[in-house]
């Protein structure tokens, strides 16, 4: 998409309000029979309001799409160029320059994550998230794959990440591969943030019609009074010790919860103890379960509604 797609000014919500049909909210006076003409007018006004809402909804979707493209592209360029300079592609750099650029890189990566999370959130709220369900996701294998990509970062922090092999072979779950990866990465990086050194363990287990995946850390734990807020938007636990700032938007767990719920599962804090660590778990329906079939139907029908909506 290019920047030519502008937002029509006429879709301003304030404008919509002023044009909203009057009198519809007030019910007809008791005992007074509405005339045929009043009915006609009401229908006209409702049709008009419906059309305006649809335009507004479309403008909002376009805005999200434009924002995501236009915000992310420059960041990808900044990140790419810095990584090239850091790799010495633009000539030798000295230790000090390298140090400065590494800080810039960390900030850019943080920024990318933040923008991604904000856009994920707005897409969740706009109901325009696409779920691409696959029936054959093996959670233990997925965890293994993700952990190997995080290991190098973890080792610099004296943290060991391991995936325990499941006691019994796991059945496949039905899920969106990318979104589940995002949830699991979120849980593991959260654990890394609050663990100075120690072990992060990932366990997978079948529980009835679901497969549960749990991430356990040996970190600082979450104070009781903050546990209820964990999955709320923009909430983040205060840092246990000054100087260990928990950089983040406070959206990660909120997004994770929405993603898991939409796929028919649940996510929760299993256990947390100050100074000992925390365990977060999430469940996903086994592909052959009736829950999985129900979710597949739900997502399919939502998708077809959206398709109709966009074709208009």
């Amino acid at each position, binding site marked *: *998409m290019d920047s030519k797609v502008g937002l029509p000014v006429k879709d301003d919500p304030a404008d919509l309000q002023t044009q909203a049909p009057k009198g519809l909210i007030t019910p007809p006076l008791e005992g007074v029979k509405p005339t045929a003409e009043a009915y006609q007018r009401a229908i006209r006004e409702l049709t008009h309001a419906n059309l305006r809402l649809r335009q507004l909804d479309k403008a909002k979707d376009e805005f999200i799409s434009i924002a995501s*493209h236009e915000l992310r592209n420059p960041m990808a360029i900044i990140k*790419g160029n810095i*990584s090239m300079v850091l790799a010495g592609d633009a000539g030798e750099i000295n230790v000090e320059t390298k140090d400065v650029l590494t800080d810039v890189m960390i900030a850019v990566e943080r920024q990318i994550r933040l923008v991604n999370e904000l856009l*994920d959130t707005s*897409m969740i709220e706009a109901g325009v998230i696409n779920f691409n369900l696959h029936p054959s996701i093996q959670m233990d294998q997925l965890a293994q794959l993700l952990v190997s990509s995080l290991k190098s970062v973890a080792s610099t922090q004296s943290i060991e990440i391991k995936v325990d092999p499941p006691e019994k072979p796991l059945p496949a779950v039905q899920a969106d591969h990318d979104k589940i990866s995002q949830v699991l990465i979120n849980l593991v990086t959260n654990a890394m943030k609050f663990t100075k050194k120690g072990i992060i363990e990932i366990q997978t287990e079948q529980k009835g019609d679901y497969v549960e995946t749990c991430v356990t850390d040996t970190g600082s734990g979450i104070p009781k009074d903050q546990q209820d807020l964990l999955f709320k938007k923009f909430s983040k636990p205060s840092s246990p010790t000054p100087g260990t700032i928990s950089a983040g938007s406070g959206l990660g767990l909120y997004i994770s919860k929405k993603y898991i719920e939409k796929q028919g599962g649940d996510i929760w804090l299993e256990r947390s103890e100050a100074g000992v660590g925390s365990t977060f778990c999430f469940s996903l329906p086994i592909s052959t379960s009736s829950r999985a079939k129900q979710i597949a139907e739900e997502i399919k029908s939502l998708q077809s509604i959206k398709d109709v909506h966009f074709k208009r």
Partner: protein
Amino acid sequence: MSKILLIEDDALFVKMYQKKFAHEGMELVAAYDGAEGVEKTKSDKPHVIILDLMLPKMSGSEVLKKIKDDPQTNSIPVIVLTNLSTSADEVNKCIELGVKETFLKTNVTPDQIVETVKKYAQ
């Protein structure tokens, strides 16, 4: 020398990759929209194509279809760059049309792209 075609509408992105590939001893040809991309695929015969799915005028999967429908160009390996807002449908279409790999544009580093390109450039 391997020749790479990058179909991408952002000039700064193109410039970055031009530098990167020059450094790696490869030639990068750029096309700034889908139509130009299809044209340059025919005229320049690149070894590998990097295709951004978010393009003006023609969608990424349409460009890909044109490249794959032409017997002269259908064997050229294509790597696709996606965006988080790219629909699953669009990505699936590209996979069905036989793209080699897909990368999230904001997450991938130039090194990863170069590595992947080297794998497919004969």
